[in-house]
């Protein structure tokens, strides 16, 4: 101010008006320009707003600070603090209300002239105005004026002599302040505390002081350099910010001895610090010669009282314009809106965007929060798009117990929806593998069985000695191709791939027939061709063309196939090798790739991803020779473990806990090492030994336990004393019977229990006997009793214990998603 730096203020009530003050006061009106052109003479504030100058007031020279009257009426009354310490009431625009006419031009004069540093209107008594002045050796630096007090006319004549000639006789001078505080001290900043009308916080020369006007001889103060710009958090009345040079200090008035935290020091001195009036815990700061406003988000600050830990703050900065910023002002009501003014009086109106926090739910919906709004992104109810999403697919499959049918393994592809041929192929492969394992285990309980699961590669590798290739004649053609001799392992591999049936027969005929029956002519033709039976292939294609569902074009393919020639440079070969790529069906494509390939290089077949893996593997078994390598246990593979763990986590995230448990059960059957270790032990209060330790007669290895609590068998559950020291087990907090006894009946058994069918009831009854306890208060009892207690209560059942056990359990109130889902 004072000619150098403009300051800016929003009107407290007329929310579309603001004042820029430097050597004079200029009142502006903000208008939206969304639907209209920029008016002549308007200043653009932002893309969609502009300001129009309403009036200018240059009545008050030597302005040092300005404060806008907080009451609704009169709206445009401002207090101006001058370089000589006088405070002048002035107005902007026309306030015709005669009631307040007396106020305009009123001056409040300190005994000794010196600069007025700051002004603050009392938020509770709108007539009280506090002024902070520089130091005088004998005078006070905080003066509180009552703007409605009667002026003292006796002093006027003398003043007139001293005042500049422009002053008129109507000038009203008030020289008697309501309160005088801070003798022989300087006041640099002021703010009223919202807690009480008579509490004033002042940044004095070397300290922050709280003056209580009810007892002016006393004050509370703390020595600090951070005395500039004191300001109270409008949302948290005990939190105050002040600054000194480049550092902001945050104070808690309840713990006033030292700042609760200081913000990172800025290299340049601060000029303004302001709490956002529309958002909790957001502090904006501005330094000299800077074009950015730094924001400190103390939203998640825990109450700093009690512990010494510094709260976490999120620091951000906004750059409203390219020029240096002289001052800024938060809008009093529009959320996060701010206006800034530059030294050359260009202005910019903008809104500080909230940080957006984004969250995916484990199912596909997406949520984000911005400011006070919460947005949910829902996918359009379009089946196709839902189908495509793997997460949705996996979830639906998990819901239909996909993968959990371990008896009839092939059925899993039906559980997955019977739509994906690849899945079908996979599960049949697995099915075959399972069958062969079982067969082999029956025949010779040796190591071959497990080999089946180790993969084709391992099977083929397991054969002793190299397989020799031999030339085989094409049936129906005068041609020979190199085919690997099928040893036992390769036959097993082909069997696993489904090309040949169980037993000693190596004929693919039955497989071809089954394919034809299912209408997979292309695949059948390809398999026939790979078995060097081109006639059969052509025949199959013809069959396909003539059938109802088949494609007539298959005839054309058959014709093309029949034109096969072994000639290296023939036109047939040339055309087929290029045109085959245009065939849509992968099997048709690989047929020509096979026929046009050089001997021994079958990349066109092997790398055709659309062809089922098992067909390609089978192909490889027939045509490729052995290469070295060593079999690996798939389960030991890190990646596999990673997939399993992630799948389990995913099921948990979906709240498919029962599905996950089922998965774990099946998994532990196959891989006993995956059985989870007991995580909870019940130890005896007296001897400290686990009570389930000797429950089981069979000695467990190490510290293994069957389950905590009393596991299943009713005979075991009658143990009511510690098996280690024979002292009694603790009592259930509800039935007061020692733990270990089975639950007689559910106290307060609800109606819903009656509906439950018997088998479920039985399972429940077992669980009812389990130990449960609160990890916080350590009270507990029978699981069944506890469950029914917490159905109606939040507090611990033990009298005089006020632990809110149930609320501490974050997952306790969640319902498994399976129960909700249809």
């Amino acid at each position: 101010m004072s000619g150098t730096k403009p300051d800016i203020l929003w009107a407290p009530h007329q929310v579309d008006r603001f004042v820029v003050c430097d050597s004079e006061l200029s009142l502006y009106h903000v208008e939206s320009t969304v639907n209209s052109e920029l008016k002549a003479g308007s200043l653009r504030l932002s893309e969609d707003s502009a300001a129009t100058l309403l009036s200018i007031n240059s009545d008050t020279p030597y302005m040092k600070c300005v404060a806008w009257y907080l009451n609704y009426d009169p709206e445009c009354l401002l207090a101006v603090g001058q370089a000589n310490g006088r405070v002048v009431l002035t107005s902007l625009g026309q306030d015709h209300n005669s009631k307040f006419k007396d106020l305009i031009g009123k001056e409040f004069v300190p005994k000794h002239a010196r600069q007025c540093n700051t002004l603050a209107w009392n938020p509770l008594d709108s007539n009280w105005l506090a002024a902070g002045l520089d130091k005088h050796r004998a005078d006070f630096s905080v003066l509180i004026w009552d703007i409605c007090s009667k002026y003292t006319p006796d002093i006027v004549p003398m003043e007139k002599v001293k005042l500049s000639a422009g002053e008129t006789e109507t000038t009203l001078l008030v020289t008697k302040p309501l309160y005088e505080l801070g003798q022989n001290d300087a006041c640099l900043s002021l703010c009223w505390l919202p807690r009480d009308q008579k509490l004033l916080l002042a940044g004095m020369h070397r300290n922050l002081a709280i003056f209580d006007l009810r007892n002016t001889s006393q004050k509370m103060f703390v020595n600090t350099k951070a005395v500039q710009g004191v300001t109270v958090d409008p949302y948290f009345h005990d939190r105050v910010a002040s600054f000194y040079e480049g550092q902001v200090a945050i104070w808690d008035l309840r713990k006033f001895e030292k700042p609760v935290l200081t913000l990172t020091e800025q290299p340049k001195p601060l000029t303004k610090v302001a709490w956002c009036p529309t958002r909790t815990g957001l502090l904006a700061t501005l330094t000299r010669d800077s074009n950015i406003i730094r924001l400190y988000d103390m939203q998640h600050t825990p109450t700093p009282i009690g512990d010494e830990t510094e709260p976490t703050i999120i620091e951000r900065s906004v750059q409203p314009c390219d020029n240096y910023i002289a001052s800024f002002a938060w809008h009093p009501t529009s959320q996060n809106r701010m206006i800034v003014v530059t030294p050359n009086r260009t202005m910019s109106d903008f809104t500080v965007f909230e940080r957006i926090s984004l969250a995916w739910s484990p199912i596909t919906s997406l949520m984000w929060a911005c400011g006070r709004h919460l947005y949910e992104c829902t996918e359009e109810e379009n089946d196709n798009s839902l189908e495509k999403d793997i997460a949705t697919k996996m979830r639906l499959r998990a819901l239909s117990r996909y993968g959990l049918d371990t008896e009839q393994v092939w059925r899993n592809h039906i559980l997955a929806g019977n739509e994906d041929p690849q899945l079908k192929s996979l599960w049949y492969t697995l099915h075959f593998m399972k069958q062969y394992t079982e067969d082999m285990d029956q025949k010779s309980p040796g190591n071959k069985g497990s080999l089946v699961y180790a993969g084709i590669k391992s099977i083929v590798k397991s054969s002793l000695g190299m397989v020799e290739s031999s030339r085989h004649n094409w049936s129906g053609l005068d041609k020979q191709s190199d085919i690997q001799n099928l040893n036992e392992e390769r036959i097993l591999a082909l069997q696993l791939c489904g090309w040949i049936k169980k037993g000693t027969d190596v004929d693919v005929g039955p497989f071809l027939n089954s394919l034809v029956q299912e209408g997979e002519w292309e695949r059948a033709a390809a398999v026939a061709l790979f078995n060097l039976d081109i006639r059969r292939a052509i025949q199959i294609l013809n069959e396909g063309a003539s059938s109802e569902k088949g494609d007539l074009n298959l005839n054309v393919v058959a014709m093309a196939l029949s034109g096969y020639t072994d000639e290296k440079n023939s036109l047939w070969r040339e055309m087929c090798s290029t045109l085959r790529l245009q065939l849509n069906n992968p099997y048709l494509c690989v047929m020509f790739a096979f026929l046009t390939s050089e001997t021994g290089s079958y990349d066109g077949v092997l790398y055709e991803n659309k062809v089922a893996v098992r067909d390609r593997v089978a192909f490889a078994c027939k045509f490729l020779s052995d290469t070295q390598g060593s079999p690996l246990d798939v389960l030991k593979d890190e990646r596999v473990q990673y997939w399993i763990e992630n799948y389990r986590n995913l099921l948990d995230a979906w709240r498919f806990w029962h599905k996950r448990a089922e998965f774990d059960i099946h998994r532990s059957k196959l891989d006993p090492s995956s059985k989870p270790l007991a995580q909870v032990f019940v130890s005896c209060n007296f001897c400290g030994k686990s009570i389930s330790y000797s429950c089981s007669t069979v000695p467990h290895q190490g510290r293994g336990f069957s389950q905590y609590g009393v596991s299943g068998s009713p005979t075991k559950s009658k143990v009511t004393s510690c098996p280690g020291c024979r002292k009694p087990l603790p009592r259930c907090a509800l039935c007061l019977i020692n733990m270990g006894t089975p639950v007689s009946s559910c106290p307060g058994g609800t109606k819903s229990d009656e509906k439950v069918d018997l088998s479920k009831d039985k399972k429940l009854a077992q669980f009812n006997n389990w130990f449960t306890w609160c990890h916080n208060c350590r009270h507990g009892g029978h699981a069944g009793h506890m469950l029914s207690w917490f159905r109606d209560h939040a507090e611990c059942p033990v009298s005089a214990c006020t632990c809110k056990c149930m609320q501490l359990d974050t997952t306790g109130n969640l319902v498994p998603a399976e129960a909700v889902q249809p």
Partner: protein
Amino acid sequence: MELHILEHRVRVLSVARPGLWLYTHPLIKLLFLPHRSRCKFFSLTETPEDYTLMVDEEGFKELPPSEFLQVAEATWLVLNVSSHSGAAVQAAGVTKIARSVIAPLAEHHVSVLMLSTYQTDFILVREQDLSVVIHTLAQEFDIYREVGGEPVPVTRDDSSNGFPRTQHGLSPTVHPIQSPQNRFCVLTLDPETLPAIATTLIDVLFYSHRFPSDLLLTSSSGELWRMVRIGGQPLGFDECGIVAQIAGPLAAADISAYYISTFNFDHALVDMKHREVKCLAQCHTAGQCGTRIPKEG
């Protein structure tokens, strides 16, 4: 009450009137361009005899030695009293601290220089007397020594060296006082307006004798002050109790006063509405009056 020992280490010097031309440049620099030097404490007092400078060591370096420059041997430390009691005290300045600071120091033979300003009063003591000062004043004050801008509490224990001195009563010497008829205004200035009135100030300080009336800030009641000059012969720096001699009676009568020590003499400014001259005159019956009229300011 708190007593702050400020960081400045101050030298007191006198520029003879004929030598002013030699010092105009550094003085203007120290006065108007404080950011150009590291000087943080600067005072210039013009009397009919000389110009008295009180500058810290940084400022002292700016001044070239010459035959016109007289420098007091000692290095002085600046004391400042601040009270946090909200109780209103009517009289201010040297009067307020007369009983609590000035008199005890005089009793312990500590020579002080006073420098009153619009905002506050500074008490300058010789660095070598510091331990005595602390010991003397520790009972009445919380003493802080400023280090790097931060007040550091001074405990009494580390100040016991050099104590006790033999105690005397007040100085037996009663100095003559003079009180010319001209009246004084005590004024202050908004630092931001300094560039605007720099030329006027330079003119007033070094070339002419008229002060502008509209730019400076003073009391709204328009109080005027009369000056009392203490000392017929230059007082020197060793004698103690001179300030106490003046401040004591003023405090007894509850009269506000400014007090400015210069190289040769002391000057008290007293509120005209009190008949303080009388009061002082009563105390100084042996004194002579009005030998020289100090320069109008």
